[in-house]
């Protein structure tokens, strides 16, 4: 048990119940993510990647087992405490629909800071800075629907890192992008990982992305079948 673990799971189970059918999505996952690690979780469709990310991000609760975020168990948290935790400790990049359509790129990026109660001037300054880093500052006053898919995902990455969370969870962030754009996005996330010392965990079933990460966690049928450092 390392003290520098950002997040750690113990015997994590998740069983979905729809009516009478029970779908076990995770069956006893133990893993530990170190600070600054850039990790991918890979596996075929239905292997439980999304489920794992949702549990780690406090968007859903496990059926069994425990998650520790910076050593603190998450199971005892109330719904509102979980929301607070998502707001302050976790950055999310989803596959699509990451941005609020009625807000500009800049406003979207600053939105999390606004929810955190950061002052107006300060949050615009930080949002501008991160957009510049990601090379999308020229779209700051555009609405998301004017941007290409790749540009939207970049803004999503900006929104995820702007509040300097403990970990950024990205569920197939490149799934809707062509290969080149997808690789660029991963490179960008990598840069954020290095420059901001942010821990990243993303899910993918695109094996071409895997030679760009530190570590790959392979999932199959809700179990870890592979866990190796590739760099």
């Amino acid at each position, binding site marked *: 048990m390392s003290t520098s673990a950002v997040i750690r799971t113990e015997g994590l189970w998740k069983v979905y119940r729809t009516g009478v059918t029970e779908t076990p999505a995770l069956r006893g996952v133990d893993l530990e993510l170190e600070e600054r690690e850039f990790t991918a979780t890979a596996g075929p469709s239905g292997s439980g990647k999304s489920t794992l990310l949702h549990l780690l991000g406090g968007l859903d609760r496990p059926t069994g087992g425990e998650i520790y975020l910076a050593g603190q168990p998450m199971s005892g948290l109330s719904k*509102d405490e979980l929301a607070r935790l998502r707001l302050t400790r976790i950055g999310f990049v*989803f596959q699509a*629909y990451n941005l609020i359509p009625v807000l500009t790129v800049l406003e979207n990026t600053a939105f999390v800071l606004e929810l955190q109660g950061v002052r107006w001037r300060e949050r615009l300054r930080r949002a501008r800075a991160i957009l510049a880093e990601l090379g999308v500052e020229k779209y700051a006053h555009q609405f998301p629907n004017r941007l290409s898919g790749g540009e939207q995902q970049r803004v999503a990455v900006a929104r995820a890192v702007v509040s300097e969370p403990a970990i950024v969870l990205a569920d197939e962030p490149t799934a809707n992008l062509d290969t080149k754009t997808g690789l660029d996005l991963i490179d960008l996330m990598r840069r954020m990982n290095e420059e901001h010392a942010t821990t990243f965990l993303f899910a993918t079933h695109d094996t071409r992305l895997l030679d760009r990460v530190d570590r790959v966690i392979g999932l199959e049928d809700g179990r870890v079948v592979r866990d190796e450092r590739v760099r």
Partner: protein
Amino acid sequence: MRVALRHLVRNRRRTLLTLLAVLIPVYFLVFMFGFANANLQDMFETATRFDTGHAQIRAVATRPMGGAIPLMRDPADALAVLATIEGIEGWTVRLDLPAMASAGDRSRAVHVRGVVPEEVAPVGGLADRIVAGEPLATGRGGVVVGEELARLLKLEVGDEVALLGAHPEAAFGAIRAPVTGVYRAPEATLGRTVIYADLETARRLARSEAAATAIVIRVASVASPRDQATLDRVVQEVRAALPAGYEVQDWLELAPLVATYMGILTPALLIVGGIFFALGGLVVLNTIYLSVLERTRELGLILSLGAARRRVVWMVLAEAGAIAVVGAAGGAVTGVALILGVEAFGGIPLWGAAAEFMREMGMSSVLHLTVDRGQVALATGAMAAVALLAAWWPARRASRLEPMEAMRYVD
């Protein structure tokens, strides 16, 4: 807040329709209040100026009067009291007697109303209503009859009418009096029954030198039904100062029909207004609900990012609040503007059957709309509150969404 406003701007059509749904009830109610005010004012003026005054001092009945007003042998003690009370603008003594009026071979049961024409000012009205002959004057001994009675008894100015007093508490006097004028009553029943005479003539008919049936009072700074509180205060004071054997009744007690109408009008308005408000509220509910439904995915995202549920509630309520405030204020402004506009053109003249009906009811046939700040505030505030209340449920629903399920929602 910004998110809410942007949504309103983006769905302009829907926002506009919802705004109208909030605006129209307020507009309608403000205008109807104006209309009702005009109506009540009109009834108040007619009743108090022509008939009842603001209040009357009468003798307490000691036996069944059969429709007559009890007689005061000499109301000097009551008059002395009036002089001591502040806030009384004026008064006049009146003697109302049941009587039989005959001309030629026709006769009718009538009501002789003895007044002091020179003092009628506090009650007023009669001189303006003379359509033939002269107004009443003291010392001339003539009487003024209503148009309707003149027709029934075939009387014209200059004819003589025989009157036989029939007050149960007075001696039965008989006189012959010339008809010196014909008046047009605000109400046909009055015109058929009330004969105006000067007080002296009426007293001869009662064979009593100082008798009266009422002291009609006008109270200062009472100009509309809304000044009832002032009136009540003065009436209380008079009542407390009067010797035993007298009572005071205000115009509402003296004109019970008007009082009943007034009692019905406001609640009726509020009920109709309430229905409009409920409909407006439903439209707001529908709009906000649709807006929440359409934005399920966005709300899911906002919740995923960790927004507090309270914040989501506020976001949705802000959207409704903007509509509520702008719509209700718009309704108030347009409603007041309409009223002021109508008044700038001299009020609403009624025509045809409506005008005739109003005349029969003793009301003027031109309506003057007035606005009352309290009523406008009531209509505006109530509608805004209803709109916000209607948004509460969708707002709560939005905040209770499961973030992940909401994000999977496809519209």
